[in-house]
Every structure is written in structure tokens, then in C-alpha cells.
């Protein structure tokens, strides 16, 4: 097992392109998943029995099955019923729905963790349930959820490696392309190093974010 710097040199443009694709997919699906998670958690907090039940089914189904199964489900299934999307968007869709369900559970737990007094105080001011949620509970819940959310976000970048299975040229794919051409593991090692650097970067950033968002009372 040897590391060939020459190979990295010639493949560097490909690697940079792949890194951009990985990051684009991670950022896009991360932001969308946060939106999906917020909406779902919000819906659950409305205490409408039918709505809550439907949303619970959504989160249970998407959390308890592997992302790769969901990805293939959409990738091979959607064209079958006449919906044609680029594989990039299919990938982002799959990661969004999967991670959205995880985000929803995190935010839901955080909403439940907001003290009851806040609800009562807002109610005594004559606010409706929807208003209380949007203006009082939700902002606090989101802030309290930051440590758990950033932990989950660092998983999104790892999820994007699955996009290599649907023919998208991202980091993992470049690694296997190099192996297929030269039978050399350098590509995998370099891709792995990039993933670890990204992971450490996200960790540092989330540490800063956590410290900034902490409220002292």
C-alpha cells in the first residue's frame, strides 16, 4: 500500500470538482432537511391527533430504514412513474427526507423540553397556540437543539458518499475511479483525508456555535 503524490497531482482538478459536488449536496440537503424537520416538529406540536399520527409514521419510516434503500427507491422508482430528475436532485431529495426525519425528532424533543411556564405565560397574554409556538416556544427550542443538530449535520456529509452509488462524481466516486484505473488506493486515502478534515471543521464550527448560542440566565 503506497501513497502516490503524482497521482494526486494529476487528479487534483477532479478532486476539487468532486469536493464541491459533495459540499453542494451536503449543504443543500442539510438546509432542506432542517426545513423539513422544523415543519414536521411544528406540526407535531400543534396537538392535532390525525396530523401528529401521520407525522409520526413519516419519521418512524424514514428513520428506521437505511438511506441507501431509500435512495434506490427514489432513484429507480421515480422514473418508473414518469418523474425524471437529475440524479443529483434525487440524491438531495433522498438525504433531505431521511435526515429531515432525524431533525424532526431532535426538534420535537427540544420543543417538549421548553418549560411549561412559558406556555402558560404566553397563554395568559392571550396568544393562540400557533402564535405561541412560532414566537415563544420554537425559537427557544431551536436554540436548545443546536448541539444535537450540529451532531446530526456532521452525518449529512457522510451521507453524501452514498451518491457515488447513483453515478454522481463526488469524493468517494473519485476514489473508486482512481482504483479502477490504476489499482491504487491513493484516491481512497486522499478522499478519506478530505472527509476527516471536513468532519473536524464542522466539529470546530459547531463548538463555536454552541458557545455563542448559549444563554446565561
Amino acid at each position, binding site marked *: 500500500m503506497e501513497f502516490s503524490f503524482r497521482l494526486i497531482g494529476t487528479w487534483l482538478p477532479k478532486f476539487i470538482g468532486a469536493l464541491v459536488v459533495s459540499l453542494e449536496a451536503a449543504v443543500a440537503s442539510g438546509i432542506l432537511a432542517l426545513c423539513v424537520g422544523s415543519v414536521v416538529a411544528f406540526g407535531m406540536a400543534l396537538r392535532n391527533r390525525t396530523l401528529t399520527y401521520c407525522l409520526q409514521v413519516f419519521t418512524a419510516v424514514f428513520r428506521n430504514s437505511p438511506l441507501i434503500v431509500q435512495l434506490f*427507491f427514489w432513484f429507480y422508482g421515480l422514473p418508473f412513474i414518469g418523474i425524471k430528475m437529475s440524479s443529483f436532485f434525487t440524491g438531495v431529495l433522498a438525504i433531505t427526507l431521511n435526515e429531515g426525519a432525524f431533525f424532526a425528532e431532535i426538534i420535537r424533543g427540544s420543543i417538549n423540553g421548553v418549560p411549561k411556564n412559558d406556555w402558560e405565560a404566553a397563554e395568559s397574554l392571550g396568544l393562540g397556540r400557533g402564535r405561541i409556538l412560532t414566537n415563544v416556544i420554537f425559537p427557544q427550542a431551536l436554540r436548545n437543539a443546536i448541539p444535537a443538530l450540529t451532531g446530526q449535520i456532521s452525518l449529512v456529509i457522510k451521507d*453524501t458518499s452514498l451518491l457515488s452509488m447513483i453515478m454522481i462524481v463526488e469524493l468517494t466516486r473519485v476514489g473508486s475511479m482512481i482504483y479502477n484505473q490504476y489499482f491504487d*488506493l491513493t484516491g481512497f486515502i486522499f478522499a478519506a483525508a478530505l472527509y476527516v478534515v471536513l468532519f473536524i471543521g464542522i466539529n470546530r464550527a459547531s463548538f463555536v456555535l454552541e458557545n455563542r448560542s448559549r444563554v446565561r440566565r
Partner: protein
Amino acid sequence: METAISFGEVLISLGRGALQTFRIVPLCVLFSLAGGMVLGIVQSRKIPVIREIINVYIVIMRGLPPLLLMMFFFFAFKLSIAFVTAVLVLSLYHTGYLAEIIRGGIEAIPKGQLEAAESLGLSSYSTMTKVVIPQIWYQIIPSLAGEYIVLVKDTALVSVIGVGDIMQEGTELMQLTYKPFEIYFLIGAFFFVICFSLQQLSGWAEKALRSKLVGSEGRA
């Protein structure tokens, strides 16, 4: 292409894959628990250099996508049996996560207990095995179950190195029958049943442990 694959045959193929998945999961559960236990205990002792080395291992495992790790090991060691590579990779990967969980569980044990054990003249080995480890389970069961659910879902990835698990059988069937929705729905349902029951089981175990603790000590 007209295919003559009946629903029964689909189920038989998927069943064969499911059996292979069922062979992988318990082995990974055992190996990663053993590995996580060793690393977690060593980490809780805070030995200078070793601690840093294990930290690097944990960060790498937490930072890498399991798919990449799987392909790397498969091509690097060219083990003739893909099954061994699959079990090895998933165990190594989840060892990193479990070490963190177990270290957290050990560090959550109050200091007073360690001092009490010391004052009774217990060696550090007996303190660990007889005092600390029996108590961490209650604390770590939710995270442990969460991690094992991730492990079960990660076994779907072993199809890329050709282990013949349910996912690989499914993809081959899909190419024969062109019924992606049905087949991936069945596979998803298979994983759903396992993961959902694991989740319920962990909730039940947590409750049982809590009532046992409350019962034996007479306090909440």
C-alpha cells in the same frame, strides 16, 4: 422484457439475503461492543499518549463514511471472503462510536463510588468489573440501542462488496423484474421491522432496569 418471476420467488431470494444480513448483524454487535468496551475503559483512564492515539482513531471513524471504509478495506486487503471484510469494517467503524458512549457511561459514575471501592481495598480491576461496569448499562442503553439501529442500517452497505445480503439480492431482482418500488419497499420494511423492534426493546429494557434499580435500593 417479460419476466416470469413470481412474487414467491422474489420473497425466497430476499429471504436468502435476509439470512445473510442476520449472520452479519450479531457478529458486528458482539465485536463492536467488545472493542468499544476496551477502548472506552482505556479512554476513561486518561493515559497520556495512548489516549491521543485512540482519540485519533475515534475521530477518523466518526469522520469517514462507512461506504468509503468498506471499499478501502475490500481493495486494500483483498480478503478472499467478502463476508469477513464486511464484519471487520462494520465492527471497526462502530467501535469508534461505542467507545465514546461507554467512556461517557463510565465517567457518569459518581466519584464517591470509586473512593468507596478504594477504601474497601478493591483493586482497580475489580472496581471496574464489579462496581463501575455493572452500573453503566442503565445510563447507556438508549445511546447503545441508537447506535445498534445505525449498525443494522449500515449493513445495507455491504452489498457494494458483494456479500449477498438482502440489498444485493434486491438490486439483482430489480434488474430482472423492473419493479423498484415493490422491491425496495419490501427491503425497507425488513429493516424497519428490525430497527423499530430494537427501539421498542430498548425502551422496555430501560424501564425494566429503572424499576429494578428503584426496587433494590428503595429510592428513585
